[in-house]
C-alpha cells in the first residue's frame, strides 16, 4: 500500500515535467525531484542551456556549490564547453584539475586539458593515468593515452584494465568508456542490446558494468522520453538494480530532454 502511494505521488510529481520541457522544469527536476536519476537527467539536459546563458564565473560557482549533484554536473559540463578552445594554458588547467574544490570543477578541465596532453609521449601519459594526483587527472591522461594507442587496443586489453584493482580509478573509468566502443564496433563482434543490459546489470566489476552502460546509452536514445522516464522511475522502485544501469537510462533521458529544450 505504501509503495502504491509512492507511485501515485511520483506520477503526480512527474506530470508537469513530461508535459513540457523547459529550462525551469529541468532546473526544478535537477534540484527537487526525489529520484536521483531524474535529477541527473535534468542536469544533463541543462548543459547546453547553461552554456548558452551563464557566464564562466556563474558556472564555476554552480560547479562548486550547486544545490544538487545534478546542478553541479550541468555546470561542470557547460564550463568544460566554454574552456575548450578558450586558450587556457596547461598550467591553468592542471591547477584546476588538481586543486579544484569539487570533482565537478576538476572535471570541467578534462576536455581542454586532453587537447594539450595529446602531444605528450604515451609513456608519460600512462604514468599520469596511473598516478595522477586526482581521479580527474588520471581520467584525462588515461583517455588521451588510450586514444593515442587505439590502433593497438583490443577488447581484452581494455577489459583487463577495467578489472585491475591496482590501477587508478580514473584510468579504469577512461578504459571503460573506450571499451564501450569495442562493445559496439566492429559489428561482427558487437554485443547485443541484451548482452549489454546483462553486463550493465550483473557484472561483478563496476567498471565493466559502466562500460556496458556507456555503450547501452547508444541504444536507449532510440526510445521516447516518455518511455525512458517511466523506466527510470521503475528502476528506482526496483531493488538491486546496478547504479551503472540506472545511470544509462538517466543519461539517455537527459539527452532526450535536451533535444526538446
Amino acid at each position: 500500500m505504501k509503495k502504491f502511494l509512492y507511485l501515485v505521488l511520483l506520477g503526480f510529481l512527474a506530470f508537469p515535467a513530461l508535459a513540457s520541457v523547459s529550462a525551469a522544469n529541468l532546473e526544478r527536476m535537477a534540484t527537487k525531484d526525489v529520484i536521483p536519476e531524474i535529477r541527473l537527467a535534468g542536469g544533463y539536459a541543462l548543459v547546453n542551456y547553461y552554456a548558452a546563458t551563464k557566464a564562466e564565473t556563474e558556472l564555476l560557482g554552480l560547479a562548486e556549490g550547486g544545490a544538487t549533484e545534478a546542478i553541479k554536473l550541468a555546470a561542470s559540463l557547460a564550463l568544460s564547453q566554454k574552456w575548450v578552445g578558450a586558450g587556457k594554458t596547461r598550467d591553468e588547467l592542471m591547477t584546476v584539475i588538481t586543486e579544484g574544490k569539487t570533482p565537478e570543477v576538476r572535471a570541467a578541465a578534462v576536455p581542454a586539458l586532453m587537447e594539450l596532453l595529446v602531444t605528450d609521449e604515451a609513456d608519460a601519459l600512462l604514468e599520469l593515468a596511473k598516478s595522477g594526483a586526482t581521479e580527474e587527472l588520471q581520467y584525462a591522461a588515461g583517455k588521451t593515452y588510450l586514444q593515442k594507442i587505439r590502433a593497438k587496443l583490443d577488447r581484452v586489453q581494455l577489459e583487463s584494465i577495467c578489472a585491475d584493482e591496482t590501477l587508478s580509478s580514473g584510468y579504469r573509468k577512461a578504459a571503460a568508456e573506450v571499451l564501450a566502443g569495442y562493445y559496439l564496433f566492429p559489428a561482427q563482434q558487437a554485443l547485443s542490446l541484451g548482452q549489454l543490459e546483462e553486463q550493465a546489470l550483473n557484472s561483478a566489476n563496476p567498471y565493466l558494468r559502466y562500460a556496458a552502460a556507456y555503450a547501452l546509452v547508444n541504444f536507449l536514445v532510440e526510445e521516447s522520453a516518455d518511455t525512458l522516464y517511466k523506466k527510470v522511475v521503475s528502476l528506482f522502485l526496483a531493488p538491486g538494480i546496478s547504479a551503472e544501469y540506472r545511470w544509462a537510462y538517466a543519461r539517455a533521458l537527459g539527452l532526450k530532454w535536451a533535444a526538446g529544450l
Partner: protein
Amino acid sequence: MKKFGVSFLVVAFLAGFALAQEYKVVPFGQGEWKDFTVGQYGGYLVLGSLDNPKTFNHHIAQETSSTDITGMLHAGLTEVNPITDMVEPGLAKSWEISADGMVITFHLRQGLQWSDGHPFTADDVVFTFNGVIFNEDVRTDYRDVLLVEGKLPTCEKVDDYTVRFTLAAPFRPFLRMIGGAIYPAHKLRHLSRVYNPDADPEALNSAWSVDTPPEEVVGMGPFKLKEFIPDQLVVIERNPYYWKVDPKGNRLPYLDGIKYAIAFSLDTIMLKFRNGELDVYAPRPEDIATLKAEAAQKGIKIVIDPTKPLFGTTWIAFNQDCPDEKLRKYFRMVEFRRAMSHLVDRQTIINNVYLGLGVPQWSPVSMLSPFYYPDVPKYDYDPEAAGKLLDQIGLIDRNGDGWRDFPDGTTFEFELNTNAGNTIREQVCQIFAADCAKVGIKVNFNPINFNALVTKLLGGQYEACLLGLTGSSEPHGGANVYTSCGGLHFWKYSDCEDPTPVAKRIDELFDLGVKTYDFNEAYEYYKEYQILVAENLFLIYTVNMLYRYAYYENLQNTAGFSPLAGALGFAEVLWKKNPNMVGNRIVG
C-alpha cells in the same frame, strides 16, 4: 539631356542587370537532391586542417591544405554534381558541341558578379585560359589534363557571354576537365605576359600568396577569403554575389563561412572533433570504436556507407610474361586466374582486416563512377571450384606431398609480393596464401620495399603481387593500365607487340569511349570493357575500403556526403539547425 541620358542608362543598366541574372537553382527536394532541404542562414562550419595553406592561388596550389580552401573560392565553366558525379553547367549555362566533336561553344550565365562585385564576362574566361592556364610562365598541372593528342585547345571570345574552344581531336572528358577555376581578369590580367609584355614571368605564380590582403583574392565560388592566422586558422566567408539559389530563391551558401582550424596531427584533430570544436571529421577505421561509444552522448553521426567504397582498387596480379616459363604458361590460362579468384576470401578479409569497413571489388571501374557496371561475372570465394579448375588444367598433386605439381613433377609454387609495412595488404596476402595452401597451391609470401616492388612490377620481373591503383569516376583514367601499350599494363607488357583478341577489343573500346560525347553510348563501351576484364581476370580485385564520415547532428543537408565530394563538396548547401553551435557546443 545629359542628365536624362545618364539616368536612362542607369535605369536600363539596373533593369537589364536584374532581369539578366541567370542564377543556377539547386533543386532541393527533387531528383538526386530529394533528401536536401531549404535551410537557414548563419553559423560557421569548422573543420580541421593538418597544415597551413601555402598559397591562395588555386592553379598553383598542390597540397590539400591549400586546395581545400581555394576550391571554395572559385568556380568553373562546368561543375561536377557532388551526388551523381555527372558534369553539369556551372558558370556556363549551356554548351554546344560541333558534329565532329572538335569545337565546344560555351554560353555563360549573364548578370553574374565576382566576389568584389565586378561583372563576370567572357573576357574572364578567355583571360583564364589564354593568360593563365595556357601560359607557360604559370606552373600549373591543370595544363596537362587539357592536352588532347599532345595539343592544348584554343580559346576565343565570341561575344561577351560566349566562348569557343577548339580541340585537336574529340575528347569526351573535356567537359569534366574544363571546369577549372576561372580567374578575374580585372584583378590579374596585368600580371600575365600574354597581356602585358612587361610583366614579371613569375608574377602569376606568386600572385595571391598567403600574405595577400584577403579582399584581393577574388573569385566566383561560394565563399571568399576573410582571414588567415598562420598556425591557427583560416576563415572564409559567404560570397554575397554567389550565383546559386535554393528553390525559394535564397542565395547560397547558407553558412556564414568556414573556419579551418589548423592542427598538425590527426590525433589532435580527432580530439578536437570529440570535444565539439569541429563539425565534421573523416575517421580512420581505428577511430570508429571510440566515436561509436560517444556518439549518442555527444550527438555524433557516424556514416559508414556500404554502397560507397573509396576510389581506387586493390588487386592481385599474375605476371603473364613472368620469366619462369612454366609459371608463365599457367598464369596465361584464364582457368588458373579464375581458380585464384575463387581463393580470395573477400568476406573474411572484410571482417578481419577491414573491421567490416570494406566491400568486394569486381570491376576495374570504381563503384562510384557513373560508368560502373555492377553485373560483371564474379568468381567469388569457392575453394572447391578452385580445386576443380586446377585439376582441369593439370595442376594436381603428383607425389602426395600435399602440394600441386607441374606435369614434370616439380612443385607448383610462386612468390607473392606486396609492399612491406602496409599491414592491411600483408594481412590480405596471408589470408590468400593460407587459402591457397588449403587446395595445395604453394604461395611464398614475400613483402618487400615499395620502391623495389614497383621496379619489379614495371620491369616485368615479378611472379605475383598484391598492390593497389588509385581511381576516379572517369574510366579513361584506366587507359594506362588496360590498353595493350599502357605504361601500367604490368601483367602482360607483351600485349603491346602481340595483342590478344581481347586486348585488341579493349583498345578499341577505350578509343570509342573517349571519342563520343554521348554518355549512354560511352557507358556501353565501358560496360563491355568491364565484362571483358572481369571474365579474364587480368587483375584479380579483392576488397575496397568503405567510405566513412562523422559529423555532429546539428549539421543539416549532409545526406550526400560521400567520397565523391566529402563534406566540402556540399559546403554551399550545408546549414546548421542551431547556428550558434560548433560540434555539440554552444559558442555564441
